[in-house]
């Protein structure tokens, strides 16, 4: 198992804030809109440096999404910022009609995604957003794994023409990807190569997959660990290359098992290469209040859960082979 030492932990939302500031300096067409969560989204540095290009919309997310759609007419590149819940479920129809169907170049940037939002509880912990966004025709869906990758993704989407949903989070997590990485939309990143099992992970679960990889290596199991930062369009070639080698799959995401990365991978498998798959994710329930660590444990999103799922899926694979 390849080693991923880290020296620092940071929140992915700060990666977004740093990326946005850099974009503001590089491109005068970048504008930012926020619905009363500037500090939470780490958009304050952009607001301070570019007040004329920062639009405080107030607690009116529907208005924000459609204003952003309108601002693209004239060539501006709007980045909207609010919590993931208010970036998707609350404004689904606005995104559907005025952004996705209308083909507008809006970057929907969503923080506090998933249960690691923590103590605020289930009203704010959206676990369905990836599903909602990947169902929209023409929508690109990205869930980076650490500070550096989130910053790189923020920079990359500005140069991409079309609507994007960029999902990130609140807790501080290890920084284990390079600061100078080139972020390629739709291109999976391999963290470890192994022939026994494919682990496809997104967002905060990528680090958990790496931790799981170390535990598995101690048991003599070598895993392909692949970071699917872009859930749509999915890197189908990378998925198939791995599963043709390993013939069993784990998907891991801080999201419902319905509609998210797991479903996207299952679709590819059932169409091209049907093999056993186990799903790490929230299993059709709402979240609740608690610390991020407590919640990840309670909802089965830890490295140990991935290890157990690997053992199960490999057993299923081996049963198939003997049958």
């Amino acid at each position, binding site marked *: 198992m390849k080693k991923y030492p880290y020296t620092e932990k940071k929140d992915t939302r700060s990666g977004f804030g740093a990326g946005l500031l850099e974009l503001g300096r590089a491109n005068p067409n970048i*504008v930012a809109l926020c619905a009363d969560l500037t500090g939470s989204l780490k958009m304050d540095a952009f607001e301070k440096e570019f007040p*004329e*290009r920062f*639009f405080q*919309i*107030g607690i*009116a997310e*529907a*208005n924000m*999404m*459609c*204003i*952003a*759609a*309108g*601002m*693209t*007419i*004239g*060539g*501006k590149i*709007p980045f909207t910022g609010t919590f993931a819940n208010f970036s998707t479920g609350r404004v689904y*129809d*606005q995104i*559907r*009609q*005025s952004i996705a*169907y*209308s*083909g*507008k170049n809006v970057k929907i940037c969503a923080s506090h995604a998933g249960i690691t939002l923590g103590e605020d509880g289930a009203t704010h912990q959206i676990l369905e957003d990836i599903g909602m966004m990947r169902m929209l025709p023409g929508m690109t869906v990205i869930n980076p794994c650490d500070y550096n990758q989130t910053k790189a993704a923020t920079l990359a989407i500005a140069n991409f023409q079309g609507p994007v949903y960029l999902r990130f989070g609140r807790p501080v997590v290890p920084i284990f990807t390079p600061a100078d990485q080139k972020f390629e939309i739709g291109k999976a990143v391999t963290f470890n190569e192994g022939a026994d099992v494919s682990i496809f992970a997104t967002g905060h679960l990528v680090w958990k997959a790496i931790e799981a990889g170390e535990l598995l290596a101690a048991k003599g199991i070598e895993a392909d660990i692949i970071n699917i930062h872009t859930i749509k369009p999915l890197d189908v070639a990378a998925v198939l290359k791995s599963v043709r080698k390993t013939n069993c799959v784990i998907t891991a995401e801080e999201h419902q098992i319905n509609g998210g990365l797991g479903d996207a991978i299952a679709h590819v498998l059932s169409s091209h290469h049907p093999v056993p798959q186990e799903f790490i994710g929230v299993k059709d329930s709402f979240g609740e209040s608690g610390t991020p660590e407590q919640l990840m444990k309670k909802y089965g999103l830890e490295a140990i859960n991935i290890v157990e799922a690997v053992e199960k899926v490999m057993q299923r694979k081996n049963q198939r082979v003997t049958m």
Partner: protein
Amino acid sequence: MKTVLELEKIASQVRRDIVRQVHIANSGHPGGSLGCADFLVALYFRQMKIDSSDFKMDGVGEDLFFLSNGHISPAFYSVLSRAGYFEVSEMNTFRKIDSRLQGHPTTHEHLPGVRIASGSLGQGLSVSIGASLSKKLLKDDKLVYCLCGDGEMEEGQIWEAVMYAGAKKVDNLIATIDVNLQQIDGSVEHVLPYGDLKPKFESFGWTALEMDGNNMQNTIYTLDLAKSLCGKKKPIVILMKTEMGQGVDFMMGSHKWHGIAPNAEQTENALSQLEQTLGDF
């Protein structure tokens, strides 16, 4: 610049186009479309600076119009084609398979003249604010126009937009509300009365004007006045009184023709009341 008489002649043709599109498609929304015909003609044939021969999505250096109540698409398509954005014969494809003239307007099929999809109500005013802000950033002194239905005032997002535009002084925006007092289930009074719109808008920091949207003279006067009031730290709203079904006697005075198509006999009757001035499509 076109005279009142010339504009009225175009509006008569637009009304024929509306009735014929809806009849040929055997579906669509004639009532509100007929009511807004005069306003849209005044806008596209006199008020706005546009380049219909070379449609560009960004519209820099042009006035922009956004239709929020997308169901009056027959009126919108007629005016766009008569203004030169596309061939008038394309109106034959309205609401048919493989058409650019979808039931509700969309950018998805790349129909020249359309800059946003609409149909799901309440969104167009926010989009118009976005376009207005973009124009300000670009130092483009052209204006943004928006049309909403009055039933649409029941959508909460409208009031998010009204609050924002007033508070942030979006003064290159002229919104028009089609006050025909009708919606699908009956009169606005019956469904959900919105009270007096003028003081509502004014209290949010807008300049509110009233207009007879079925009187061309009054319409062009009010549009000129609205334009002269732009740039004074307030968005402008025009409360436009219209008659649903205007120009076709049996479609007037009721909500019943909001969303149904006339049959052959009714179409013939309607067309007998509307002078053909530019040639039918």
